[in-house]
């Protein structure tokens, strides 16, 4: 049973009356239920476009995008979509707890205090419940953002370069954290990233993309068993795969 399907999808962005850019062309992609897929590529290769199409934030120019056979808008309406962006996009006037109540309020449900407390603990922010985003570090804000994406137990988790704005050390640490969090939830996940190590460490399958028009040039089934830990990143095979994919990213 497949969860996400893109069939012959293309996406054209109009710049002005004469010019337009083909961001995606004839894209076919199937993502199984419970699979963690990383879309890896240089900026401007259309990887974020795929994510936006799956999230229903954009419509394809041709082709169809379905999640469980339904258009993404229906998943939106049922609040089964968890999404986190590179910029944390938290409400600056609310506390951590208040931001985690937001998905419940949007869905018109009473917020589940216990569940929220559990999520805060899961992302390692216990003790920061009443801090506001401006009082947190970049890494902590991204944790809140990921916790918020998980609030309503979504069927699908979309991560758009969630650690793109972080420094290398924090990013590596956040990768370990995300791997731990995902291990507990095992939700179908699409991660958009331009960092090779991040893609290989976190995903079950890495799709390497090239730009203009965006298409998949390589597919890698990641051989490492879960749960993965720091040791995974130190293996010879890990480094080989990183070098290998880095090479295929070069134009």
């Amino acid at each position: 049973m497949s969860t996400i399907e893109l069939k012959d999808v293309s996406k054209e962005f109009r710049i002005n009356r004469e010019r337009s850019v083909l961001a995606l062309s004839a894209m076919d992609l199937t993502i199984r239920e419970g699979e963690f897929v990383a879309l890896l590529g240089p900026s401007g290769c259309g990887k974020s476009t795929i994510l936006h199409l799956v999230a229903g934030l954009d419509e394809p120019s041709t082709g169809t995008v379905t999640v469980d056979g339904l258009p993404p808008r229906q998943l939106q309406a049922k609040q089964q979509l968890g999404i986190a962006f590179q910029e944390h996009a938290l409400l600056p006037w609310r506390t951590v707890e208040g931001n985690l109540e937001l998905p419940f309020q949007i869905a018109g449900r009473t917020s589940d205090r216990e569940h929220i407390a559990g999520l805060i603990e899961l992302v390692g922010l216990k003790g920061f419940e009443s801090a506001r985003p401006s009082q947190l570090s970049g890494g902590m804000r991204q944790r809140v953002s990921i916790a918020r994406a998980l609030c309503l137990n979504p069927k699908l988790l979309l991560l758009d370069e969630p650690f793109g704005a972080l420094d290398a050390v924090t990013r590596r640490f956040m990768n370990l954290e995300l791997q731990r969090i995902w291990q507990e939830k095992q939700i179908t996940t699409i991660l958009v990233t331009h960092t090779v190590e991040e893609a290989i460490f976190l995903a079950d399958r890495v799709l390497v993309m090239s730009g203009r028009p965006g298409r998949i040039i390589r597919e890698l089934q990641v051989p490492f068993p879960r749960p993965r830990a720091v040791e995974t990143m130190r293996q010879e095979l890990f480094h080989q795969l990183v070098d290998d994919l880095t090479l295929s990213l070069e134009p």
Partner: protein
Amino acid sequence: MRYAERNNGGVQRALYQACGFLLLLAAWQIAGKAGMGGKTLPALSDVLRVYTIGWRRALLLRAAVTTVSSAGIGLLLGAALGCVTALTAQLLPVLEPGLDRLAVVVNALPAIALGPVLIITVGREATPALLAAIPVFFLIYVAATSGLQSADQRLGQFFKASGASWWTRFLYLDAISALPALLNGMKLAVTTAMIGAVVGEWFGAPTGLGIVILNTMQNFQIPLMWAAVLVVAGISLTGYGVIGLLQSAVERRMA
């Protein structure tokens, strides 16, 4: 450390502002005492003495209550209309260009031309409030329109992906994001409402600070006239300051 610096900067700026203000008052006092402005420019101390005379204070207070009520009603009315119009333009984008033009036209009508029309249509009592409401409407319409569009784009995408309805998005995102711009508009609207109310009274309202200014001018009661003008200025500046404080508190909260 950063807080300390910012506070120091604020204190320093406030000090400069106070110094400038005091210099201005001192210049007024000296010019008045020296008779540099003729009989129509009394010294500041002569103007302030007006406030110590019981019946004059009572007169000014009664007049101020009337004018502030008119300005207040105009402020609320104009602000409410401005917000509703801005929301309508948001909800029905087809109407937006039309509403924009309507707001500009309403704002372009000179109070001087409109006053007599209002006197014969809504009467002398209601004219000050309406003349206050018109410029407020325009200011708040512009402020609310830009405020409602100021929500962070990423947050907008998050709301959309989460399946938010127009109403939930408005309630939890757009309305709150609009607050700083709206308060900025309100800050300016307070002073505009006071001007509108005073000018509105000149067309023949029974009482009010505008009437006091007009009558004292005609009867050559110069210190009392200046005293009334100072009251108008004081109320305007106080309103401006209070809303300004509210605005910076909100902005701090939203940073």
